[in-house]
């Protein structure tokens, strides 16, 4: 399953205690609801059908929880007094991001539950990317938008008392601190996309919540042999991130099958037209990995698992890579108790809308 380098020595510093049932893997380990719809997006216009997406989300949430109404389904995770962080992904902007339509639908449901707008916060690491997406245009007044880094590399908005210390390659700055705002959230909803990742293999639930919530991340992949294999899971397991991330909604309306995590070349953008719902980030990512792998196979390019891919810096060539991909980071995360990666043990409920 991958990795050829030993796990480095991690030192986790956090004063937060795990909740009795941590959000990851949460109440539904090894369970994923997959909702597909051919109508969810118009490929020609690249336009999302909001009504269809709403139906996909409603049915996904109800199927996941077994509740009789959408409202009851959301109430399984969120109460009116919660302060809710919504972790979006804006790396593949402007197209392959946590869709503003999906985010708006989540916020609508949160307000239906009774959460005040001012208690909802859309967050990401890089302020510039986040504000470029202008999520606020689709949201009620009062919803907060928080980008942690206005200047790339700035640690001002990170929590100096919650961090992971590790020396990967002899870098001088050996700490990755958690975004300080996270400590104010009582619940986090994670909205990743289906994307290839040049270093981690793919980027989904785990990497979005891990690398998207801590500072100084790129140091794990400065050289061909990276440390993404273990770092993704180690970060996702840090409290309070692990306990408070209670819901995973995989936005696979659009995807990236090569060149990720960004989506600079339209050739590599595709339309899985699929959303996945669950509390187990590992199980969702394991399924998403196969979606990307299948697309790459269909395109006739090298496998995500191939560790012998020639080294090359041309990101437009799917048959070379800067890094050795580490899709095994998903399996590694399962060893930390974050979820189920064994496909034979993952129960998938399929819905067609």
């Amino acid at each position, binding site marked *: 399953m991958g990795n050829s380098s030993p796990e480095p020595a991690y030192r986790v510093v956090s004063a937060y205690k795990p909740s009795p049932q941590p959000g990851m893997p949460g109440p539904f380990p090894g369970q994923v609801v997959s909702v597909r719809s051919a109508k969810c997006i118009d490929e020609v216009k690249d336009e999302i059908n909001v009504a269809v997406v709403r139906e996909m989300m409603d049915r996904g949430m109800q199927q996941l929880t077994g509740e009789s109404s959408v409202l009851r389904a959301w109430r399984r995770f969120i109460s009116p007094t919660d302060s809710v962080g919504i972790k979006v992904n804006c790396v593949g902007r402007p197209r392959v991001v946590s869709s503003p339509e999906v985010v708006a639908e989540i916020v609508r449901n949160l307000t239906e539950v009774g959460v005040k707008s001012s208690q909802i916060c859309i967050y990401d690491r890089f302020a510039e990317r986040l504000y470029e997406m202008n999520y606020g245009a689709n949201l009620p007044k009062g919803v907060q938008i928080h980008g942690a880094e*206005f*200047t790339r*590399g*700035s*640690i*001002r*908005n*990170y929590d*100096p*008392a919650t961090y992971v210390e590790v*020396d990967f390659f*002899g*870098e*001088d*700055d*050996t*700490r990755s*601190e958690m975004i300080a705002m996270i400590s104010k959230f009582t619940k986090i909803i994670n909205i990743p996309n289906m994307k290839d990742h040049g270093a981690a293999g793919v980027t989904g639930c785990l990497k979005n919540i891990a690398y998207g919530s801590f*500072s*100084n991340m*790129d*140091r794990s992949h400065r050289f061909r042999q990276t440390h993404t294999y273990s770092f993704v899971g180690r970060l996702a397991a840090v409290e309070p991130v692990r306990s408070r991330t209670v819901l995973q909604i995989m936005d696979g309306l659009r995807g990236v099958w090569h060149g990720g995590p960004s989506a600079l070349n339209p050739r590599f953008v595709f339309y899985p037209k699929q959303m996945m719902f669950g509390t187990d980030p590992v199980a969702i990512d394991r399924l998403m990995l196969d979606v990307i792998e299948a697309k790459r196979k269909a395109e006739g390019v090298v496998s995500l698992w191939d560790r012998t891919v020639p080294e090359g810096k041309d990101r437009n060539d799917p048959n070379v890579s800067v890094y050795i991909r580490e899709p095994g980071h998903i399996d590694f995360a399962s060893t930390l108790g974050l979820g189920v990666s064994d496909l034979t043990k993952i129960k998938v409920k399929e819905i067609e809308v």
Partner: protein
Amino acid sequence: MLALLLAALPVIFWNQGPETAVALKQNGIEQMLVPAERLQAWKSTGLVVRGITTAEWSALEEALAPGVDRQVQVASATRSPYLIANGWRFIRNRSAKYRYTLPAGKSALAAAESYAYGADAALQIETADLEPAGKMLAFLRGLPVADLPGVSDLAVVDDQHPLVGEVMNLLARRNLLFATATAPDPRYPINIRIGSKEYPEDEAANPSEFALKIRRQLTDERRSVRLYGSETVLCRLTGDDTRIRLHLLNYRGGKVDGLRIRLRGAFRKGQACSDQIGEIPLENFAVSNGATEFSIPVMNLYAVIDLQREK
């Protein structure tokens, strides 16, 4: 000494005519070196000036314009770019007198750098830099005097080996605090003599890797200073049994938006300030496990932090 009245401050070398005196005064620069042949003309301006001949100027040790060398032809963007910094030169030769010839935009950092290391330095600056240079000099003048010795975690035996300068440069680049010695100094756990069995020449030929080896030998736990949040801020630590002064120099330029600092030892909360900003708070101050940690929310090119040791 090059400096005129305030021995610790760098001095401006100004090779324009006395018609520029008003601009100098407006920017708070009231003492400087001028070309010897122009000295007489400057005497009527009311400024404190001293002449320096071309030969005298050339005889000074050269310090390089400090900053980031982006090496755009050979490298992509990095958090840890090559820095041009002179601290190691100042440590290596404390008795030398230095000259900077600075393009516009470099004078403030150069002034701070030479001040932080107590170097006897003259700065030839561009007209466009009168304002930033004047502001930095004013900031330096306003700092409380703290004539404290350098704090070091290891020693480099300076036997004039051709590789020793670059090794010192890369040690300083990694904020590994070193002293120079003419022979191994038993006060330090590590004494580097290039060409010795433990530190062979072929290893020193790659000074970056060599510095990493030294860091690993020393261990991060035993380092007197660690910085988190920037790989382009370099430090100098001075101190004695009662107090320390930490100098922070931002070679990238612009503001550093948050920096976490770890000092070995227990200290009481003290004072910090930065040019262009003034007083800055020491946030999330914590003392535990034989170390003191705190954050500063912002610094400009140069910050000074004064702390008292816990008794």
